[in-house]
């Protein structure tokens, strides 16, 4: 990321970041096999609610877009639409090796091998699959990053939108949000 790492936040932003760090509402984008690791993380064995995290029903309400597994050309378009519906500040977590470098699908013709060409990923969780311990550990890191103001992927996306949009168009040919209701 090219954004400078100097802490330029105002006092109210630091206070707001404390609240944002300790209340993480997630939208799970569950197309890959990674979704199976979320129920044990959520329920009584690991209990992610003790860190203030919880699942949300729609992208509008969510703070974190959790992408669990590989993305095909079709699902990537929906991920981008979902991401652009979320409200700032928003964070993306790539889950599993597939989002990192393609994982076992590295030479497939239909899957995206690197998620951060298309969306600004704040944190990766490596592994195939990452166990709930790794997920809890990763979210502990994400909480510290947000609290320190280091999770700035959403700002990076705004500043380098042309570069991201070029990559998205290169892979998908067209990217636009279709509004069926208002047409």
């Amino acid at each position: 990321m090219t954004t400078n790492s100097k802490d330029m936040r105002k006092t109210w932003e630091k206070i707001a970041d404390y609240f944002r760090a300790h209340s993480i509402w997630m939208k799970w984008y569950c197309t890959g096999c990674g979704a199976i690791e979320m129920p044990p993380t959520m329920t009584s064995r690991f209990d992610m609610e003790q860190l203030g995290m919880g699942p949300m029903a729609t992208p509008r309400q969510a703070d974190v877009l959790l992408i669990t597994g590989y993305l095909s050309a079709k699902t990537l378009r929906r991920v981008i639409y979902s991401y652009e519906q979320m409200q700032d500040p928003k964070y993306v977590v790539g889950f599993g090796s597939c989002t990192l470098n393609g994982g076992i699908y590295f030479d497939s013709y239909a899957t995206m091998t690197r998620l951060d060409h298309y969306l600004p990923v704040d944190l990766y969780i490596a592994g195939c699959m990452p166990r709930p311990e790794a997920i809890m550990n990763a979210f502990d890191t994400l909480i510290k990053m947000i609290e320190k103001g280091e999770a700035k992927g959403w700002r990076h996306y705004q500043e380098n939108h042309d570069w991201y949009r070029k990559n998205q168009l290169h892979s998908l040919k067209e990217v636009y949000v279709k509004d069926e209701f208002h047409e």
Partner: protein
Amino acid sequence: MNLMNFVYAFLLLLAAFVFQTTLTGINRKVVARLQRRRGPRFYQQFIDIFKALSKGSTTHGWVFDFGVVMALGGIMATAIFIPFGPLKAVPAMDNIFIIAYVLAVGMLGMAMSASGSGNPWASIGVSRALTNMLAYDIPFMMVVFGLIFAFDTSSLSGLAAIQREGGFLGWHVIRFPLGGIVAMISLQGMLGKKPFDSFIAPAEIASGPMVEYGGRHLGMLFLLHEFSTFIEVSLIVHLFFGGGATVAAFLVKYALIYTFLNIVSNVLPRFKIDQAVTFFYKVPLALAVVQTFLIIVVGMGVA
């Protein structure tokens, strides 16, 4: 009405917000213990609300924005009329009819705003919420009219004072047990807790009316939810559990009732909306009719 009334009203709203939000947080902990989890911090609900208010937000037209403000304003205006134990911000205005009518402003604002977002899930959610309202309101209001008929007053604090004369046994929930059962079931419906939460249903209709809300708008909805919970539970405490001679007694009764309903909610599955309406029009409505008959014709419990 003078300036002091407004100051009292503001303080009452603040107290209601702090109390109800803390109680919601504690109840999240209670639910976690039911499910053998550790659960969030007890002040997690405050963090969630302030986080939502600190985020950016988008609009879907002026109906969407105006509806949220109208709903929050309407609900806060209603909360002012609720007696906080013996304390009243606006004396002699704690009438059930005033509360019922001002409460409708908030409900309709919410419905207007959600429909204004143009999302089909929101429309389904709103239609279910209003259907649900139609279901629980009829048995509940029938029992309340019975109480008003029996004691010739529609003032909340007046009805609460009548109950306290006879001590614990004078509570309306003891003297009119059928009415008490109807009120508790209706309160479960008012609060939108299981089994009557089909209009929220996160996995089915993506949280219904709230589907398009994010950031600040969602924060306002959370505030609205805390205030409307305060109004609804307070109504039942005043009507059936003797209100509060002191603030502490009121808050203890309030907390026990809310926690009880929350525990009941978490061991039940969800009704479909037609099942909920059928249920309300069969069991609670029948109980309400019997109770009102006993009050008006037989005079049982009125004495």
